[in-house]
Every structure is written in C-alpha cells, then in structure tokens.
C-alpha cells in the first residue's frame, strides 16, 4: 500500500491574541508558533498505522517555503519514507483550488493507492483541498473519515455526520480520504527521531517541474480571493464579571443562588 499524505504548516492560533497585518488580508504571524495542521497530524499518523499493518511506503507532500520543511521532517521522523516540497513564486496567493492543482500534479508522478490529508486546515478552514485533488486526479474520495479499513482494492470507511451519527461507506482504491481529528492517537516525535532525519535531502519541485504553467497555479489560477480580514467585535452578549477571583466567584454564586440552583 503506497500512501501519499498532504500536510500543511499552520500557525497555532488557539490561544494566541491575533491582529490583522498591514495588507488587511492576513494576520500578523511574527509572534506565532507554527506546527503541523492538527487534522494533518491525524492523517500522517493514520498513514503510518496503515503502513505498519499493510507494508508499503508513505510520502509526505507540502506546498510552502523552506520554513515549512519542518513539517516534512516531522513526517519523516514519524516513519514516512519520502517527502516532497512544492515551492515556486508562481504558487504565491494560492486559494484552495490552486493549491489542489499543484498537489495533484505532484502526486500524479508518485505511485499511490491512497491519498490522505486533513479534513481542513486550522488557518483557512476551506475543507476543500482533499476532494478537489481527488476530482483532478479522477479518483473517488470520502471526507470526514473517522476509521479506515482496507480490504483488497476497497477502503471501507466511517464518515462523521452530525449529532453523533456516522455512515459506513465503501470507496474503490485508489482514493482520497480526508481525516477527521480523533481518528487515532498521534504519537509524539522524539528529538532523536528529528535528529535522525535532519540531514535527509528533501526534493523541491517548481511549477515547471510539475508541468504546470504559471497561470494555472497560485493567485493566477485561484478562483476566489480574500478581500479583507476583520476581527469580530470583542463585544459580549452578557456581562463580564469584574474584580478579584474571590469577588467574581462571589458574584457568580450570588447569580446561581438567585436562580435557585444552589438548593
């Protein structure tokens, strides 16, 4: 089973105080910590688990700058056999669609039975790249996958629906699956593991290497564009209790008591 995993390096914004940059079209990223996209972390883990069970190879692919190479090294340290980075000035300004165009062109040149990626990325959250890659390559896909079983030339997968419901779906291989968080328990990468792959040469491919024209990729090939970002008003619906910890707790207990919730 040869598996390709598409990964992305994103800023960790869960606990960060965000502000908009001067272009108005992105956030300031200087002070943010970057890591592999959370969903992609589950995808690479699932690929490694499948490889451990069924044999074969795992190839990690990302589109990005030299800084983004660290997520590929992380994948290699986890057990991926190969990594490819796509970089070209022509890729700048990609939307979800033109990102998929570049990834699909890179994957076309690799033997694959299965392509895994995260359901979405924590930054743009398009949720679009996986199934778009599938469409471009002419293979079937399933999104929001919460379990994978391979039986011969078929993947039997569970998809997460709403309200705790799931569906069981069968997809012919080769196929693209987008992986939902919680599907597995991603292992940690050891420092020794990272050190072991620190000197591995990671090939870089340009648009030309992939047989893509500059107007097919990046901003030129994009079908949507970001006009601007804004931060939602900090305004609250209710009341933020003010004072020391003891004081805010006292106020809250008073509210609970007035509602009759304290017996």
């Amino acid at each position: 089973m040869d598996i390709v995993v598409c990964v992305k390096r994103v800023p960790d914004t869960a606990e960060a105080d965000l502000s908009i940059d001067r272009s108005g079209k992105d956030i300031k990223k200087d002070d943010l910590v970057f890591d592999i996209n959370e969903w992609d972390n589950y995808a690479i883990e699932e690929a490694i688990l499948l490889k451990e069970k069924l044999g074969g190879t795992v190839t990690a692919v990302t589109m990005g700058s030299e800084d983004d190479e660290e997520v590929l090294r992380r994948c290699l340290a986890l057990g991926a056999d190969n990594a490819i980075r796509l970089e070209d000035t022509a890729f700048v300004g990609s939307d979800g669609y033109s990102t998929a165009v570049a990834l699909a062109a890179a994957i076309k040149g690799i033997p694959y039975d299965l392509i895994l990626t995260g359901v979405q990325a924590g930054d743009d959250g398009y949720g679009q790249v996986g199934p778009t890659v599938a469409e471009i390559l002419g293979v079937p896909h399933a999104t929001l996958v919460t379990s994978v079983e391979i039986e011969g030339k078929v993947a039997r997968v569970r998809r997460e629906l709403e309200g705790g419901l799931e569906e069981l779906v069968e997809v012919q291989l080769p196929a693209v699956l987008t992986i939902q968080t919680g599907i597995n328990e991603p292992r940690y990468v050891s420092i020794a593991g990272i050190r072991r792959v620190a000197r591995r040469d990671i090939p870089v491919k340009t648009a030309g290497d992939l047989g893509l024209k500059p107007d097919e990729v990046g901003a030129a090939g994009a079908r949507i564009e970001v006009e601007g970002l804004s931060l939602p008003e900090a305004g609250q619906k209710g009341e933020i209790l003010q004072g020391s910890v003891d004081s805010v707790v006292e106020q809250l207990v008073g509210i609970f008591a007035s509602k009759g919730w304290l017996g």
Partner: protein
Amino acid sequence: MDEIFVLVEHRKGEIRDVTLEMLGKGREVADGRGARLTALLLGKDVSRMAQTLVSRADAVEVIEHERLADFNSDAYQEVLSRLIDERKPVLTLIGHTAFGLDLAPSLAAEVGAPLLTDVTGIELADGAVTAIRPVYGGKVRARVRSRGLGAIVTVQSGAFAATGERETAGEIVRADALFSSDLAQKKFLRFVEAAAGDLDITQSDIVVSVGRGIGDPKNLPLVEELASVLGGVLACSRPVVDKKWLPKSRQVGISGKTVQPKLYLAVGISGAFQHLSGIKGAGIVVAINKDPKAPIFRVADYGIVGDLFTVVPTLKERIAKVKANK
C-alpha cells in the same frame, strides 16, 4: 432569467434545517436580483418533501432515482454537474455539512465553479459572489470574493433565518437522473448510530463542560467535582474527546449532542462554531476562560476572564459552603 439553485439536504426522510435556512437566504438574494429560486430535491420517494418546500421556492425540481436513495456524493455530483452545465445558475447553495463537505469541492472542480465554503454572509453584485466566512478557528472573519458568477457556496448551519415562505406556492417539476454507468466507485453501506454512553448529558438541568483549556486528563476531576457540587453532569467540547480523555457521548456540539440545560457552564472552552451550535437552546451560559477574546464570551450571559485552575476550585468551595449552610 438568472437562476439560483439550492440543494435540498435531507436525511432519513427528514428535511434538514439548513435547507430551509438556505432557501431563506436564497429567496432574499433572488428577489434582490430578480432571479428564479429553484430547490433541487434529489432522492427516492421524496415527493412528500417537495410539498413542504414548494412555498419557499419558485420551483422544486424533483429528481428521483435508485442511486439517489441515500446521499452519495458521486451520484449527486453526476446529476448536479449536468444541471449546472446546462443551466449555469448564478449561485448554487449547498449546506456546509457532512454531506456538503463531501460533495461541493469535487462538484465545483468538475464544473469549473469558484467555491466559497463555511459561509455566513452572501452578496451577489458586480459580477461576483462575495461571502463572509470564518478563518483561524472562527477568531477572524474573512471577506472573500469569487472570480466571476456561478459560485458554489456552502452555507454554515444556523447562519441564516428560515424565512421566505410565501402564500403562492411555486411549481413542482420532475426531471430524470441520467447516469453514465452503473459502476459506482463509492457506495453507501449503512448508518452507524452513536454508542449510548454511560450517562445522557441532554437530560440534566445543569451541564458543566470542559474544553482544551484543561490541558491534561489528570485535571478533569477538578471540573467533575464542580459539576457534582452543582448537582450537574460533566460534558466537554471536541478536543477533549479527540484526545480520548472523555467518551464521545459527553461531547456537546454539531458532531456530538445538543443540550438545553438551564445552566451551561463552559470551562476552558474557546467556543468554536461547532461547539456553540450545540448550546443554542441553553438557558444561561456562563464561561470561564483566560482569553478575553474567546468567542465563547460572545454567547455567554456571564463571563469570568481568568485561569480556570484558580477560579474553579474557589467556585467549587464557595458553592459547597453555601449549600452546607442551607
């Protein structure tokens, strides 16, 4: 005349709420542009649903086929791509749901349409579709624009009101589904119901819910004790279940449970959209979070900005004391 498509989403014979919300917004956009609003109803034995939708669209187009009996993105895509190619709608609305996420991207790629996903605001002007959508986990709002008309937009559940019902009903049209081959690359097998779990969090008047902020499973008893002293149950947001710290049956949110307690106390929960839609029916929402900009404060009736590891023990102690004095 311009046309706007809305794909009807239904499951197990029920029209899903997002369908009515899309028809509400679709009606508004269609009226603004003088366009025709068409609801596309794909399935098998779905005529009854057409009757309930006909007051909300200019036409309900019913396309029935064995292959459409259960939602299957492959079969849906084949029918919809043909309709879009033939009729070139200025806008197509699909739910940003498990079904829509499986269908819209590959459909858009096939027909060459711009795709705008997870959308909470839509405008159609100047030869483009402009949409508002969340980025960075909902902490930032993006205004995005399609290159040209004909965009496919996936609509966030609950973003629009289910308005637009009219006294004069539209028409019901029937069309045939044509499939180029019988060979399916993708097959729906069956639904899998969630495991019942040890306790039903939807039955409690007081729900104390814990999120990513708890940091480590060894800290869970802290919040569980607070739930217990309040006479409530312990629930959680998605990251806690993803990390296997609590079972799925305790998860509140779109992919988990919808709760309507009198008190919903969110501890260390930032308030991602997927979580907030599970607490829309809650009476009073109280949030404890160290990030004053956390989206949870936008829906909370009362908020405490602070470190949960200080606030929660103090709160628990204080409540225990009040109760002991009663």
